């Protein structure tokens, strides 16, 4: 079935999404971060493109607010790179949501991303991607109980 056909059923009310994201500026501005209307339009557009690339359908429209909440207090994000960071975090989120084969909930994945970004990864998105790669690998092929700090089961552990 074509993606376009099922898009009909996604949580597609663009203007209400934008209103929600604009309102979030009230919270994020405390940390020196805010998105202009133009930024929000671009973020929402990129979100749609990312969903299409990841071949997923968003039926609840919750991820952008969740990412914004989780990362707005990060010491590693400045206002001038806020939008680009959010776009990349959105891409990472959906890519690894697929990679972990729906085992992790949205909250678990966003929480893991924020935790690692602000600690081990020192605000570096490439490091975050590598950490997510290891984590999802361990979920698919080894320990699926949660955070293993990048360690996955050695062969001996299966005996």
């Amino acid at each position, binding site marked *: 079935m*074509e993606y376009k*056909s099922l898009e009909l059923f996604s949580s597609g009310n663009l203007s209400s999404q934008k209103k929600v994201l604009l309102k979030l500026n009230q919270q994020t501005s405390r940390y020196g971060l805010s998105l202009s209307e133009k930024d929000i339009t671009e973020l929402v557009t990129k979100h749609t493109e990312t969903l299409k690339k990841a071949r997923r*359908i*968003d*039926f*609840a429209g919750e*991820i952008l607010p969740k990412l914004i909440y989780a990362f707005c207090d990060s010491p590693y994000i400045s206002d001038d790179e806020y939008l680009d960071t959010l776009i990349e975090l959105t891409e990472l989120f959906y890519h690894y*949501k697929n990679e972990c084969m*729906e085992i992790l909930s949205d909250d678990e994945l966003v929480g893991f991303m924020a935790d690692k970004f602000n600690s081990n990864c020192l605000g570096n998105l490439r490091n975050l991607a590598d950490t997510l790669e290891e984590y999802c690998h361990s979920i698919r092929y080894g320990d699926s109980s949660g955070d293993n700090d990048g360690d996955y089961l050695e062969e001996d552990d299966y005996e």
Partner: protein
Amino acid sequence: MNDNSLLHSGYPEIPEEQIRSLQNILIRQAKLYTMGDSSSLPIELMEELLLGIRFTIDLGRSELKSPSADIGSIYKSGQKIVARLLESAKGMLFRLSHFHPPITNRSYRDTFSELEKFPRQYDMRFFPHQIPISIDYQLSLPVSESLQGISFFCEYLRRLSLENALCRCFSFGKLKRLLTAYSSDYDDLLVNLFDPIFQNTLALSLLKKEVRGLNISGSDRAALAALFSERISTDRKNKLHRAVTRLLIELGIDSPALESYYAEIASEMLPRISSSVDTSFQGVFYTFSD
């Protein structure tokens, strides 16, 4: 966005004004499926959820005849029908499990094990259109693939019951001799057990001989060849249908469903019977030593 393309593929179109209701049902199903843990799903899963909803709506339409019924009501009605069909299937399975034919083969036994798993594995809530088991045993008249999910399953069980009814009219010994004449590997092959039994009993009925004998002799073949000498196929078809009626009377079976099913099989068999006249019905009727 108005795109009805996803509503095609054999399903009646849902009116534009009901698209929003369908959207709400799908979103609700997705939320239930993910138990609120995810706000998105892979497209393939959403497609399957949507197919499940459409299947349910289609069943619901068959009961709610009112043209003004909204999609939500039709869907709820469909869900009740799915539940009812599942209960009916459980009943059929129970009866089938107590009325196997005297002789079976590996394909039948393996398939029956699978059939018994169906009620546990069937997901009537999210994927009612799916058949979560493997069905290898082929019926004499296969169920149309246009049927899905529980509808397919119920129809399969119904036809299996109808076929087993004939097989149960004969002893293990006679059936074994016939099936061995049909194929010495009948136990290992993916063959339908009913077919050779029905073919022979139908032939005996055509000849107005006792069908419980089950065996077709050389002279029987000659007599059958004479019977099929008519050129007009409707005459041949009528002969077969009368033979089905006679067969059931002789076996003491009074069932319109059986008569209808066997008559349909007989009609399907006619081309094969007609084309094998010159080869003395090799591969159609079977001879074994009594």
